[in-house]
């Protein structure tokens, strides 16, 4: 048996001088912060299958590899990328973790909207960033978040000042070039929504080859001030040989609204954490999700909603289609603190198993401390209804087309909750390989 500490050494071999790199890259409090996270990461070790939180996700294939930190190489897949970008949106593009000015079009921003690199923001918006980091004690973060914070020298910073409205979708794209193998990248996004401000942000993790092996370790922090609104879509369409572990932390104040969508179709092994803290009265959050897997893919979605104040609402609907011998995990935790009376919380996970060897592990967890609340949850796992297939066949539609049509119906039910046409179209485009394989 290999000890966890040894495993860490092996994993970090590719960048064993990380502490020196950090010392070179950063100064002042940021250097201290990164080093603190690095030492915490080095102490913590990786979780194993015995860890309840990681029960269904074997990290072995991810952590037994050697990685090197992102490097700047010429990007040759511009044409493919452009078919995915909508020039009418504000595009912020990172290639192998490095911001690309050429591929981005950050301009003509409305008043009160700031979009800048995180490095820049560390000085220009230092108070904002320190305030954000205070909300999440280093000691409580999971090991991958810690690693991200140690590695991150760069990222994106988006801020809407009070009452600023930005209707145009901001699309952050993290593309990994197919030329490089065994890259580890640590994308980091910070999104701050001011009082009564409103924005739409989408983050896409994408690769244009299914042979590229790399590890994306992403972290997104979102803060929504009183009465603010954020529509946030995360799309993961990584290479089918890549690993993706991502955490999105959302902090909501009074009467704020978060509409989140987690869309996962790529990756060999994916873990997607979405942690929402409803820290103000009357805050409302919607977490929808869709995952489509095939082959031996594994997608593990964890959501945690923490109702800390009264009159909050949370609605979750995660749907999944599993083909081949793929696996999915859904773990949805809902906490209702004693003070959070009149909380209304709903959670549903629905799975369609198309592959004979596909498997789903779904687990809702409720921890309710208040007595006047409404919390419901449920999960379904099923195959295509034979009568529905036959009905379509009896109306001239070939069996394979019937399977596609019914699966599409299953998916549309959740995709059609997205009202932004451009985002809707992008997700449908990313779904094309899924339906071609049915």
């Amino acid at each position: 048996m290999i000890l966890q500490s040894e495993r860490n050494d092996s994993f970090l071999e590719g960048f064993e001088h990380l502490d020196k790199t950090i010392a070179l890259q950063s100064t002042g409090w940021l250097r201290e912060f990164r080093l603190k996270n690095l030492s915490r990461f080095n102490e913590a070790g990786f979780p194993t299958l015995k860890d309840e939180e990681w029960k269904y996700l074997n990290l072995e294939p991810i952590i037994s590899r050697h990685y090197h930190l992102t490097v700047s190489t010429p990007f040759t897949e511009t044409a493919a990328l452009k078919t995915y970008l909508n020039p009418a949106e504000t595009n912020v593009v990172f290639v192998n973790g490095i911001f690309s000015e050429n591929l981005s079009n950050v301009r003509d921003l409305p008043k009160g909207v700031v979009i800048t690199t995180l490095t820049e923001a560390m000085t220009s918006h230092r108070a904002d960033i320190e305030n954000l980091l205070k909300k999440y004690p280093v000691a409580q973060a999971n090991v991958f978040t810690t690693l991200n914070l140690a590695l991150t020298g760069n990222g994106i910073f988006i801020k809407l000042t009070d009452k600023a409205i930005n209707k145009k979708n901001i699309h952050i794209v993290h593309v990994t070039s197919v030329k490089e193998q065994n890259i580890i990248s640590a994308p980091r996004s910070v999104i701050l929504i001011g009082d009564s401000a409103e924005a739409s942000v989408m983050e896409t993790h994408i690769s244009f080859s299914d042979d590229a092996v790399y590890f994306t370790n992403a972290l997104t922090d979102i803060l929504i001030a009183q009465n603010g609104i954020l529509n946030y879509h995360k799309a993961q369409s990584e290479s089918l040989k890549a690993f993706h572990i991502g955490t999105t932390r959302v902090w909501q104040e009074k009467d704020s609204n978060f509409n989140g969508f987690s869309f996962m179709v790529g990756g060999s092994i994916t873990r997607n954490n979405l942690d929402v803290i409803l820290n103000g009265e009357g805050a409302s959050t919607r977490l929808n999700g869709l995952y489509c897997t095939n082959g031996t893919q594994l997608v593990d979605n964890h959501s945690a909603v923490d109702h800390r104040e009264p009159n909050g609402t949370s609605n979750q609907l995660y749907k999944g289609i599993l083909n081949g011998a793929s696996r999915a995990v859904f773990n949805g935790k809902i906490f209702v603190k004693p003070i959070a009376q009149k909380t209304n919380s709903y959670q549903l996970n629905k799975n369609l198993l198309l592959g004979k060897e596909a498997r789903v592990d779904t687990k809702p967890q409720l921890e309710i401390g208040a007595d006047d609340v409404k919390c419901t949850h449920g999960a379904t796992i099923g195959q295509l209804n034979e009568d529905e297939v036959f009905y379509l066949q009896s109306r001239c539609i070939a069996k394979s087309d019937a399977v596609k049509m019914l699966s599409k119906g299953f998916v549309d039910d959740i995709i059609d909750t997205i009202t932004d046409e451009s985002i809707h179209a992008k997700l449908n485009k990313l779904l094309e390989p899924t339906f071609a394989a049915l």
Partner: protein
Amino acid sequence: MLEIKNLHAGIEGTPILKGLNLSVNAGEVHAIMGPNGSGKSTLAKVVAGHPQYAVTEGQVLYEVNFKKINLLELEPEDRAREGVFMAFQYPVEIPGVNASMFLRAAFNEICKHQGAEEMDPIEFDEYLRKKMKLLDMDEKFINRPVNVDFSGGEKKRNEILQMAVLNPRLMVLDETDSGLDIDSMRIVADGVNKLRNKNNAVIVITHYQRLLNYIVPDFVHILHDGKIIKSQGKELALEVEDKGYDWLIK
């Protein structure tokens, strides 16, 4: 057009049809009546190709372009493309599949099969609206998922709309009248009568004589224990209505 010879079929090893013979010519209407459990619905499902039913013996010959083919050798979708249509006793709800999109896909499959040009959404919409007008149906039948949240009567009317759109040669109505109020039944029957012509045929499977006042059969067959035990003209249905099935079964 259709010739069923010595058909034996069952479900999960239980025999239901036990040597059924039936011959149907173009332009004819055949009614199949019988007590519960006699095999009426099984007959419809076997002709349409439901995968749960296993045929152990016999043939279902169907004339296509003056050649007889054995329907049992075709997939359900290929039977449908050759003009076989079964109106379901319990039409299936299909959440997430838009009715109009679904009907166009079905219609275009037939076009493809016949080597005709497929219809684009605009052309098809026009065609569909004509059919809806013919059956006095409103928008709600096509602007939502197939059969979802429809009442029993609406579902059955929707079956007839599909039949009108696909214009089949052999129409099999599986207890289309059961559970219908008299107004819905008239509408359904009226729809079927409008679709009838000398080149197609109708098999009406029913438990009640009432429907046959509206869709008048040329022949009435009594099915019992998986076999047709008596065939006669339309007066047989009235006799059954009057006396029940016992005198036939003995």
